Structures are given as structure tokens and as C-alpha cells.
């Protein structure tokens, strides 16, 4: 990434002192959208009453054994394929350490031979981020810290454990340390999240913890090839936290080096309230996970035909969406409107409208401007309502001003746009009537009309304004302009 001519990394963030760059890799844990857990038939469900989705397996009772959820395996492999990784033969390992939210006191995970290896993800900017691996593992239960005087960790009197989440399927996606700025980290997570949602792997809800990000951050002087000591930052549960935490941590590390100090390898916690990263109280014991192959599960040996079938079943991915939209609206590269239109929350509407044959430019404009301003779109606002709205505008049954108003009300009241239009008493002038109105305006302002005809083009705006005034906004500005032009050329 370093341009040797100028010795300045193109992506070195401006908030760091000159000459320093960030080396960042992200570990993203995503919960998979299955009906049941990874190794048992308990429901994979967020928000249930504590300890209601539990059984001998996910509670780690003596004698219970895991059996792999085939759907989770398929989703995990689809993630690998969507990230251009190799889906390969793999085995599960046990990662042994004591923690009360982990019922067996080991986590079933994949270690030296993960299901997916060596992939990559291309950011909207074109930067390619390597994917080292994407492996399957089980989630832990949840601990609630009770009591104590000084905060939620220190001095807690009691901890309560709910094992509903224990055994929920996870895929851990580990990027290469290819991320050079907080903004690239944000782009990476955004794109990854969009991919996961697109392929039906995850609901991508960072706020519910179904997408969790840890950042490994180090800094180094530009030109240095060795990696320096990194810190792992946990508790990044929004894109905003991610950006701010990496920014803070990189600055902190540069300051440490600048003061001739040493950065210690640490796990640090992003403290949102104080906007700083703090070192977690380190466990006394050195980490020694004593990995060994999980003897209760048998090896996975995906066949070519199985992988081929999954590959074929992959839907259109965000990158393809981006290229497709650019193509449809005639852009060389995506602008902000395109990026917004392909967001997972909006793209379903865009795709439906495009399939319904609506003008792509109009679809992108309404989605990225109006619909995006109404996020989150409530459940119950139907996909085809957006198509219908765009079509009504395209067919000039609504002016653009009216279309925006109808869209807003349609989303708010969860009502089809045609009904909203009628309810609001909106009628669009038909072209003949509009022409009659325009002609009468021309007659009423013959002086200005003569000057316009003589070449005083700025008077166009005056006439459009008059038309809008006279029609009470019912006229479509663009159509009105066209009609004016026709009249001008006629006389």
C-alpha cells in the first residue's frame, strides 16, 4: 500500500502524525440465521425468557453429545463462497478454558483446518481485504453482572447466567491485517454485513449482538515491514464505535511510541461513555487452550457437487448489485446514491422496483433520498408499494413533489401509495389540461413571453414558478419545462 515515490501511504489516515500508518485486522463473529442451535434442536431465538431454550446438549450436561446442524454447515459454506474462499475438508476442535457462560468449559470451534480459507472481499473503493479464514463455532451463554458499587464488572456481587444463547451457531470471519484506516474498517464491516444479509446467513443486527466485531490494531512507521505489537479491542457493537475505537487506539499507540514507550499486547475494551479503550483486567493464567480434535464429531469432507450446488444458489451479492446499478443508471463507479440504494435495508425495494420495470434512475433516486430518510422501514411496508409509487411517478400520475409526500405517508401509515394519494386528495393534471394552463399563463404575461422568446432564457424560471403557483404544485416541473420548450419552438 505504500507508494515508494512519495513514501506516503495513500490510505494513511490524516488524524495520525505524518509518517505513521495503521495495520488493522478484524474478527467478525456472525450468528447464523437457523431455526435451531449448532449442535442441538433447541430454538435459536433472540430475546426468549432466560433458560427456556436449553437441553442436555447446549447445557453441557454429563453424557450429552453434539450433532451438527446441516443447515448451519450450508450457511457457513455459503459465507465462504461469498467471500471467495476455498471451502475445504475440515474438523472441529475443542478450545479448552474455564468460563461459566460456556457450559462444557470448552468451545467447539475449528482450529487449524477451518471450513473456509483464503478468501477476499473487495471494498466499494476497490481495495481488496484478504479473508484468512471463516470458521464455524458455537456461541456462549450470557452473563448478567448483579450488584456491586463501582460499575458492571468491578465489585459485582453475583453473576447470573442464561444459556439460551449457548450453542447458537457462529461463523468467525478473520480478515488479514489489510485494513489501513477506520474508514476502511467501516467499509469492510458494512460490505461484509451486506453480504451476510444478502445470502441469508445473518440478520446483521449489531445492536442485538448477532454481528460482533473485534479489532486487532497496531501502528508502525510507514516503510517498516514488520508488524508491531497489536491490541485486540472488544465491545465494538456499532459502526460508530468501530471507527472511534480504532481512531483512538491508533492515536494512543502512536503516542506511546512517540514517548519512547512500548505497546503491550493486550485485550482492550471500548468504553463508549468515556470514548477510550481500556485494558481488560488480564487473567492470571497464560492462555493455553489445549486444542485437540473434537472426538464427539466426525470430519467434514464437502463434496464438489455439494459445493457446486451452494455456489449456484448464491444470490446477487452487494458488489454485483453495485455494478448492476451503475450499469443501469450509466455510471462508471458507484456514487453515494448507489451505495445507499444497495444497503440491505433498501435493496429489496430497489430490486423489486427494477424487476417491475421502473426507470432505474428514478428508483435509485427515490430509494437513496426519500426511502433512506425513513429508515428503519417498518415491517408491513410492502415491497411492491415502493414499485407502485415509482411507477405512478414515472407515469406522471404523481409529480415528484407529490411522490415524495405520498411515499412518506405510505411508509408512516403502512398504506398502499394509491390509497394515500386518494386520501390526500392529490390529483395530477393530465398533459392536455396542463398545456391549457400554460397557454393561459403565457397570455397573461405576454411581455415576459416576448422577452423570453427574444433570448432572455432566465425568464424560464419565472414561467415555471407561475405554472406551479397556478396549479397548486400539481404540475410536474419537468413536464412543464418540456411543454414550455415546445411552445417556444412552435411560435
Amino acid at each position: 500500500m505504500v507508494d515508494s515515490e512519495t513514501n506516503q501511504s495513500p490510505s494513511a489516515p490524516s488524524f495520525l502524525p505524518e509518517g505513521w500508518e495503521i495495520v488493522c485486522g478484524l474478527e467478525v463473529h456472525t450468528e447464523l440465521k437457523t431455526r435451531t442451535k449448532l449442535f442441538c434442536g433447541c430454538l435459536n431465538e433472540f430475546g426468549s425468557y432466560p433458560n427456556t431454550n436449553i437441553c442436555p446438549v447446549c447445557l453441557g450436561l454429563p453424557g450429552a453429545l453434539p450433532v451438527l446442524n446441516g443447515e448451519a454447515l450450508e450457511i457457513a459454506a455459503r459465507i465462504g463462497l461469498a467471500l471467495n474462499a476455498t471451502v475445504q475438508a475440515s474438523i472441529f476442535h475443542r478450545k479448552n478454558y474455564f468460563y461459566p457462560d460456556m457450559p462444557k468449559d470448552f468451545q467447539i470451534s475449528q482450529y487449524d483446518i477451518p471450513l473456509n480459507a483464503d478468501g477476499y472481499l473487495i471494498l466499494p473503493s476497490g481495495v481488496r481485504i484478504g479473508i484468512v479464514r471463516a470458521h464455524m463455532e458455537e456461541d456462549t451463554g450470557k452473563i448478567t453482572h448483579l450488584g456491586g458499587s463501582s460499575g458492571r464488572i468491578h465489585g459485582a456481587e453475583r453473576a447470573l447466567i442464561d444459556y439460551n444463547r449457548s450453542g447458537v451457531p457462529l461463523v468467525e470471519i478473520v480478515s488479514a491485517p489489510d485494513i489501513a484506516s477506520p474508514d476502511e474498517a467501516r467499509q469492510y464491516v458494512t460490505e461484509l454485513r451486506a453480504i451476510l444479509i444478502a445470502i441469508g446467513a445473518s440478520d446483521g443486527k449489531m445492536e442485538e449482538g448477532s454481528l460482533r466485531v473485534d479489532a486487532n490494531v497496531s501502528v508502525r512507521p510507514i516503510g517498516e515491514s514488520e508488524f508491531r505489537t497489536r491490541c485486540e479491542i472488544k465491545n465494538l457493537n456499532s459502526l460508530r464505535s468501530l471507527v472511534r475505537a480504532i481512531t483512538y487506539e491508533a492515536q494512543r499507540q502512536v503516542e506511546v511510541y512517540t514517548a519512547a514507550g512500548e505497546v503491550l499486547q493486550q485485550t482492550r475494551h471500548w468504553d463508549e461513555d468515556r470514548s477510550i479503550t481500556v485494558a481488560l483486567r488480564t487473567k492470571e493464567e497464560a492462555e493455553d487452550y489445549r486444542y485437540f480434535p473434537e472426538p464427539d464429531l466426525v470430519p467434514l469432507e464437502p463434496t464438489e457437487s455439494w459445493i457446486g450446488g451452494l455456489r449456484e444458489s448464491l444470490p446477487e451479492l452487494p458488489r454485483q448489485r453495485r455494478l448492476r446499478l451503475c450499469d443501469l443508471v450509466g455510471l462508471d463507479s458507484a456514487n453515494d446514491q448507489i451505495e445507499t440504494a444497495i444497503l440491505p435495508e433498501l435493496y429489496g425495494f430497489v430490486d423489486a422496483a427494477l424487476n417491475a420495470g421502473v426507470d432505474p434512475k428514478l428508483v435509485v433516486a427515490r430509494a437513496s433520498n426519500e426511502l433512506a430518510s425513513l429508515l428503519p422501514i417498518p415491517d408491513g411496508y410492502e415491497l411492491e408499494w415502493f414499485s407502485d409509487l415509482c411507477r405512478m411517478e414515472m407515469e406522471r400520475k404523481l409529480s415528484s413533489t407529490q411522490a415524495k409526500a405520498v411515499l412518506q405517508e405510505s411508509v408512516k401509515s403502512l398504506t398502499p401509495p394509491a390509497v394515500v394519494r386518494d386520501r390526500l386528495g392529490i390529483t395530477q393534471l393530465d398533459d392536455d389540461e396542463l398545456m391549457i394552463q400554460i397557454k393561459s399563463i403565457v397570455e397573461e404575461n405576454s411581455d415576459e413571453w416576448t422577452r423570453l422568446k427574444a433570448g432572455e432564457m432566465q425568464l424560464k424560471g419565472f414561467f415555471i414558478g407561475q405554472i406551479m403557483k397556478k396549479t397548486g404544485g400539481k404540475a410536474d416541473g419537468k413536464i412543464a419545462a418540456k411543454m414550455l420548450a415546445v411552445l417556444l419552438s412552435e411560435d
Partner: protein
Amino acid sequence: MGKSASEIAELVASGRRSAVEFAEEALDAIERSNGILNAFLSVNRDLTLEAAGRIDAMVAAGEKVGRLAGVPVALKDNMCQIGFDTTCASKILNGWSPPYSATVVQKMIAEGAVTVGKTNLDEFAMGSSTENSAFGPTRNPIDLERVPGGSSGGSAAAVAASIVPLALGSDTGGSIRQPASLTGVVGVKPTYGVVSRYGLVAFASSLDQIGPFSRTVGDSALALEVISGWDNMDSTSYDGAKFSLVSQQGVPMDGVRIGIVKEFMDGCDEEVLAAVRAAAEQLSKAGAKVDEVSIPETKLGLSAYYIIAPAEASSNLARFDGVRFGLRVEGSDIAETNVKTRTAGFGDEVKRRIMLGTYALSSGYYDAYYGKAQQVKTMIKRGFERAYRDFDALISPVSPTTAFRFGERASNPLAMYLSDVCTIPSNLAGHPAMSVPFSADSSGLPIGIQVLAPALGEELMFRIAFSIERSSGGGGFGSLDPALEEVMTGGR
């Protein structure tokens, strides 16, 4: 007393005797014997009689009852059954009543069996003498001064003392076959994967198999037919096996090639060796072709086993942490609670193996120990496979000695481990093997013959076992210790 499982099932199914009667007989025998034998850790009289009553009601209603109708069975106390405590003979599980039943238990019950109690074992099945139980050792019914073997010593003793005709044990390195041999009963370790492990508290997951104890080969055949088969709760359970075992009785031995494993004869007592040779001779007479075979790889079995089993155990036993079930000794924080609970709850041998296994897996040692041991497993499997090119099945001693005295080996773990040398290789290879009572030594202590077969070779293994049983005259070996005999028959 002393009826076989198949006899009982027939009597109950035909309505000539009641299941309740047999259940009460077994419960009474437990009550009379347990003071000196200590074969059982718990019973649930009400539950047992209720279950037996249901069988009788079905018979009375003319409903079809299963192949084990009314047969009283005992379960090694590392298998879960709703309504019975499961302790694994450990203080750490004292009072734990599992909310689910093991697959084998469900299968036995579905065939009409009536569980009468949970039997003693070495804590978490770690041992070869049942001396490592937190609730005191089980005695050998043949000689109360001696161990019954282990770790399934309670199940072996319960069958040998004719308290029940059938019991289940688990075999990780010989824990069914060795106590069967030392108490003079039949004991079977099936091919790995043939019997579901769901509900068996794991010792070493890659080696554990559940199997039956009985006084006749036929009863073990019947029991294994019942408990084997695919289980969707156990990923390692095999989906292709449907054995016809009972029917192997009396099938001729003509042309069957049987090898005596040379390496397993090394270091065995002379009387044990003599028994194996005598059994070989009988098999020859029956038409088999018997010869010696060498499988040098098996010499590595002990070392590999004492790496793999403790390593897996150290992980399997991590969950006994005082959080969700069983014992808790509370400390000021959770880590301290884990430490206090485990330190107070586990016995010496369990701690020793957890330590050994943790060490063998810890960073820097994995390749030298666990990794190597896993490769040795492959070598041993290959060694057996080579032998099975020339032989259809193998025989050997089960244990280098007959039953030993209490405390004799307790102070030296390695010496105790060495007594598993003939049984361990089958667990590492995943192959089936069983112990068939054949004779007794000069002190009247039973000697069993081990029959080994290739993976899924259970049918041939049982055919040979039936032949050995017939040539030995059948009926087990060694008579009950007079002191036990007296309490068992006292008041009758």
C-alpha cells in the same frame, strides 16, 4: 435365582411369572448383598416396581411385550436414567438426578427391561479395580478379599452374584472385559459406534463403548441386539449395523481361522496362559484352524492409551465446575469456586488423570504426546488389519492375572495401568472384543478368554464365544464366596 435373561423374558411374556416378582427378587438380593458386596450405589424401589407392574399389565392386556420383558437389569452408574441419581461414583456428582435418559436405557426399556439400580465403578470409570469409587470398593463375589476388576466392577459383580441376569457397563480400555474375566461372567465391548454413547458420562470419547454383562453368551447377544444401532443423538454412532447374534449359537466353527495374539501372552500368569491354550485346543477340536500371530504394534497401545484417554478426560471433566449441577464449594469468585469444587469433588485417580491429560495437551507437548498417540492408533489399527488378512478372529488373555487383592496395586498407578495391556488395543482400533469365562485358576478364581474380531465382526465374535462357552461346560466359573452365599440365601 440364576435364571437367564431370555428365560425370564419368556416366563414373563407368557404370563407364567410376573415382572414384579423378578424385580422384587432382584431388589431383595441387592438389599441382602450390598452390605458386603457394595455392587450398587442406588436403587429406586418404587420406580422399579412401577415399571415392572406396567410390563405385567401389558402382558395381562395381551399387548406385545419386548424381548427383555420383565428382565431386571443393572446400569453402571455413569449412564443417565430419569428417576435415578447418576454419580459416576464421584462426590462431585453426589445427588445429581439427570433430567434425561441415555439412549441405551431407552432402548432396553422399550424392549421391556426393568432397571433395578445403578452399579458401582471406579470414579468416572477411571480404574481397573473399582477401588477408586468415592463410595467404597465393590468386592469380588467369588472371593470377597479380592477386587472384581474395573471400572465396571459393580455391574460385573451384580451379574456374577446372580443379583441380575444382565447389566450394562462401559469399556474405555477394558472396563467391561477385565471385570467380566475377574468375576467369571461374559462381557462385551462392541465395535466403536455400534452402541450409542448418548447419556453415558464420557471418560474418553473416542474410546468409550457401552456393552453388556451376562452369565451366558446368549444373553449378551440378546442385549447387544437390543442396544445397538444408529442414534441421531450420537454423531459417532454407526448407521449400517444390524447384527444377528443370538442365532450364532451352534453355528459350526469349521474353517474359521483364529489367531492367538503373541504379544498379549507376554507377562501373563502361567495359569492364564494355560487357559488360553486350552481354549485354543477346544476351538481346534470344534473345527477352527488356530495359529499364533504377532501384532507388534499393540505393544504401543498402553502408552497411546494413557495419553489419549486422560487428554480427552481432562476436557470431558472440565464441566464439573460447580456452576450448573452437582457439588459446589463456593469461593469469593467464580474461578475460586471452580478450583474449590473440583479439588473437593474429585478423587486422587481422577485428579491424576486430569493432570496427565492437561499436561499432554498443553502447548508444546501436543505433538509429542496426543498427536503421536493418535498416529499410533492408526498403526495399531493397521496391525490388526494385517493380522485379519490371515485370520478371521483372534483370541488372547483378558487380564495378565486373575483377581488381585485390595490395595495390591493401588499405590502404583503405572502397575495398575499395565494390567490393561491386553484389552486396550481393541479400544484404540475401535474393534469389538469380549471376555468369555472359560476356567478357573488353582485358587478357584475365574479366567476369561478374550475373543477379538475385526470392525463390525460381532457375529463371528459371538459364534466363537458360543463355541468357547460350550466347550467350557458353561455356567461361569468359581463359586460364590461362602460369606456372600450365606447372606444371599439367608432366611430362605
